[in-house]
């Protein structure tokens, strides 16, 4: 069964959540599609669209902090990178997402 309808639903929902936070989908359409596909599969397997690039702990309270879009839980870190960890979202003014570094919060 195609995951496209669910991907479109997530795209619709996420856009409305992240825009007021100052973020948008990355202009890299291929990356958006790949990440949404991964999130739909994680949702099917594990019950929620977890970040495809972060590991789960098994502790629900902690794992809820990496359900997409997880920007509010990591705001200072993501603002420093101008992107979220997996790169699905970037700051509204970003036009070249490949130029954005990926680094852990203690290297801000």
């Amino acid at each position, binding site marked *: 069964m195609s995951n496209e309808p669910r991907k479109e639903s997530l795209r619709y929902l996420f856009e409305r959540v992240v825009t007021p936070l100052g973020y948008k989908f990355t202009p890299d359409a291929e990356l958006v599609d790949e990440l949404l596909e991964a999130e739909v599969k994680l949702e099917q397997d594990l019950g929620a669209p977890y970040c495809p*690039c*972060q*590991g789960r*702990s098994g502790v629900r309270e902690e794992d809820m902090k990496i359900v997409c879009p997880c920007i509010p839980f990591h705001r200072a870190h993501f603002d420093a990178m101008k992107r979220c960890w997996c790169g699905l979202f970037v700051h509204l003014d970003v036009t070249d997402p490949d130029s954005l570094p*990926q680094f*852990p919060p203690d290297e801000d």
Partner: protein
Amino acid sequence: MIDEVFVYALSTCPWCRKTKQWFDDSKIEYEAVDVDKLSGDEQDAAADKAYELSGGRRFPVVVINGEVVVGYNPDKFLQHLRSWGGGG
């Protein structure tokens, strides 16, 4: 100069794949594990090791000659590679 490189990755993570591709393109040998593809105790052990090394739950976690790099960061990879004049 021989470099020792190990990549902890998630199969769902494009940046983990880009990291492995970067080492492939750079012709640097490395070992890698997709933590989410392991099962049971093996998965727990690999995940715990990656979390311990990185101090978080973000992937990829790359260990280059004993130095840990979290995230896809070619500049940092180069810093720690003996064969590229860094690290050691």
